[in-house]
């Protein structure tokens, strides 16, 4: 039985009769292949990536596992549609905080239509994409103090400037994200720091991006997830996954300098928060 995912923060949402992804109860995520080239391109990427011997194993872990294409009942009632079957990145989490960050100082790429280019560059300039090399696309953070999820409106998120992006990254690791007061960054060292933390994972990805010329990950996002449910092991199980490959192209012997630059900028922000969390986030937004 397929249902609407609970923790989706960005992209098309299967709600109110709209076409969107679904999940099953076995940890799989069904992404409908839409009529245009994008779905085809994404499936083509997954096919290529899963069989690409040049991708090191430790890097493969940063990508959702691909289970091919299957027919499934579409969420908008239009009948059986082909769906890409992927690993559901947030299955196995009870109360996950999730953030989607689109990486790169541009979301457009060579040879796109003028219409698409204009749409992208307008959004890139209106958000932090051009200036920071990344933008927050969506977030859903568990507020430990209120015991509920905090999810700011999508329009608010897209209007973030530099300070807003920094504040969102601080709130992501705070126990009081919904409060107006200064984020406490209470979980910064557990989630961002440590040998299994998000920073370490980002640095591992960065090392690969310094030399990989296989793919250009145009308009891709990094998804960050961690657990809030206090289980017996107290493990945050922080995860980093690359998602959304509708615009991936061959690297053709050139590194993905657009993604790399944005990733480095994102890493710097995380590093700064980690460093200042030792002194607490008391200096305002």
């Amino acid at each position: 039985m397929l249902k609407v995912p609970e923790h989706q923060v960005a992209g098309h949402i299967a709600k109110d009769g709209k076409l969107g992804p679904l999940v099953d109860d076995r940890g799989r995520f069904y992404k409908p292949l839409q009529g245009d080239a994008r779905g085809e391109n994404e499936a083509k990427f997954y096919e290529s990536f899963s069989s690409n011997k040049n991708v090191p194993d430790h890097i493969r872990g940063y990508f959702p596992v691909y289970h091919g294409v299957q027919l499934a009942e579409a969420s908008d009632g239009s009948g059986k549609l082909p769906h890409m079957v992927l690993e559901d990145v947030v299955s196995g989490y009870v109360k996950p905080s999730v953030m989607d960050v689109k990486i790169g100082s541009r979301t457009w790429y060579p040879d796109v239509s003028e219409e698409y280019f204009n749409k992208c560059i307008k959004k890139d300039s209106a958000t932090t994409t051009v200036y920071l090399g990344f933008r927050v696309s969506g977030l859903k953070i568990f507020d430990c103090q209120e015991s509920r999820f905090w999810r700011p409106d999508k329009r608010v998120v897209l209007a973030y400037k530099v300070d807003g992006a920094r504040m969102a990254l601080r709130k992501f690791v705070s126990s009081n994200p919904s409060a107006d007061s200064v984020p406490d960054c209470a979980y910064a060292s557990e989630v961002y720091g440590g040998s299994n933390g998000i920073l370490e994972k980002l640095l591992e990805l960065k090392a690969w991006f310094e030399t990989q010329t296989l793919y250009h990950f145009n308009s891709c996002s990094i998804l960050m997830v961690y657990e809030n449910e206090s289980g017996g092991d107290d493990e945050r199980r922080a995860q980093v996954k690359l998602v959304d490959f509708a615009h991936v192209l061959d690297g053709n012997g050139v590194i993905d300098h657009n993604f790399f630059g944005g990733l480095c900028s994102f890493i710097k922000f995380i590093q700064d928060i980690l460093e200042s969390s030792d002194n607490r986030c008391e200096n305002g937004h």
Partner: protein
Amino acid sequence: MGLVVSSYSVKMHLKAPEHQVAGHIAKDGKPGPLVDDKGRFFKPLQGDSRGEIEVKFYESFSSNTEIPDHIRRYFPVYHGTQAVEGSDGAAMIVLENLLSQYSKPSVMDVKMGSRTWYPEASEEYIQKCLRKDARSTTVSSGFRISGFEVYDHKELSFWKPDRKLLNGIKVDGVRLALRKFVSSNTLSDTSSKPDSAFASSVYGGSNGVLTQLLELKTWFENQTFYHFNSCSILIIYENESIHDDGARAQVKLVDFAHVHDGNGVIDHNFLGGLCSFINFVRDILQSSDESTDN
């Protein structure tokens, strides 16, 4: 053609620089850069705010105590500004002449970054840059070769590619140019393959171009002082006695007319382009090492 200027009772013999590969040249009555015989380079202050921005950068950079010494060497030494008579009394930026210690320098100017525009620029300027960036390898590769001049050891003269040709090159053309830049064989002959004879002396080694670029890259991963919009990396090496004395390759950052404050954000645009350029250089070094092994 030269200019003799009296300044503080010292005669400065100024002339046009010999190996300028990119940027403004003296043309149509407008002043171009000049060099003296004391190792100094005189750059006319460009109109609108650009000259001002460049001076502001040099002033800030030279007094910035947080710039590590090993990074400072990648920037031209700044000697303030000076009015030079004969050039309409226009003020000029006085810099270290990067080529004064070279007798037969090969020089390449590489504009770094996948975009040459920046958010603070005017709409008109942004459009102009977008067009140029898309037509060149800037968007696709994160850098473009603005110009270069290389010494041909067979012809015993300097060779420069046609400017128009250079503007239209794609990724393969960039690779070819980077090979020609370190070759000894006849460069104007398009049928012969460049021999990359000097690849390891120029690009490789513990003091070579690749090592220097990697040092710069580490700094760029953390520095949030400046955004080096539209800046170039200049690569220089000596051809005179290259077999006996080595290439003395140097990397320098130049052209700071569009530099802005970093405001706590790294220069991800420059960094991405730099990393891409490093890969191109590394590939050429590796393939030239492989062919010498054979």
